[in-house]
């Protein structure tokens, strides 16, 4: 179980390159503007540099991801960060709080469920980063937390994990993927 966060921790991990990002105020403003707008705001208009935006756009074109993504909903920078966090480990959970200090009952129950299964996982405390919290809802088309990702793919929230646990498909899937 390892804690994930952007910035220093990601850079220190050695496997991920910490992407330099715009100031949080600017990014938040851009994100808020996107959601406030009646029409979808093109991603390129959110970028401060047209050249950098074109590069990221071309990079995104060749990038394949199993996670549902609507480019108009999140900026390229944020999408890159979200993808990096989601793929940081084979099993990644986004929690409200931390496993030792959960901030809602679903997070607490999910942590208990994962501990019961004995799986290794990484977690991200979405209360540490409002931008990730709101951006991931749009990025994955899932409006609530906690969220569980397996091998970069959204598994669902606590309700889905609980249902799969009760009918046995969760343990079957994890064994097939050799996670337990």
């Amino acid at each position, binding site marked *: 179980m390892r804690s994930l966060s952007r910035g220093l921790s990601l850079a220190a991990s050695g496997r991920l390159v910490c992407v330099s990002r715009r100031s949080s105020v600017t990014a938040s403003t851009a994100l808020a503007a996107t959601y406030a707008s009646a029409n979808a705001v093109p991603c390129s208009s959110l970028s401060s540099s047209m050249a950098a935006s074109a590069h990221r756009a071309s990079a995104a074109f060749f990038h394949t991801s199993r996670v549902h993504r609507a480019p108009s909903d999140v900026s390229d920078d944020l999408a890159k960060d979200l993808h990096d966090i989601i793929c940081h480990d084979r099993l990644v959970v986004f929690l409200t709080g931390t496993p030792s200090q959960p901030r809602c009952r679903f997070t607490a129950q999910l942590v208990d469920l994962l501990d019961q299964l004995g799986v290794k996982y990484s977690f991200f405390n979405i209360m540490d980063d409002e931008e990730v919290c709101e951006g991931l809802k749009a990025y994955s088309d899932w*409006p609530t937390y906690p969220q569980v990702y397996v091998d970069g793919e959204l598994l669902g929230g606590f*309700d889905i994990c609980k249902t799969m646990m009760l009918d046995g498909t969760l343990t079957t899937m994890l064994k097939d993927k050799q996670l337990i």
Partner: protein
Amino acid sequence: MFRVAPRLLAAYTAADIQAKLESSAALKPVQSIRVVDVSAGCGSFFNIDIVSPVFQGKSLIQQHRLVNSVLKEEISAIHGFTLNTKSK
């Protein structure tokens, strides 16, 4: 002048959510829907159970996304909800 707290005016009732789900074209034909307000009537937390053949053949996450899209406005206003979907 008596002022009602703005938040209360925005609260949803179980009946509101039930009506929304029952009238949604995406979920027709609906066999049964049960919406229970478990926040002691505050309109902030609901348990939702839906039985509809439209869920047949869909994965759990697809089923939940279908319902999430119908209740998009409500989900952003309430504190939380639990959802159970069945195809029969």
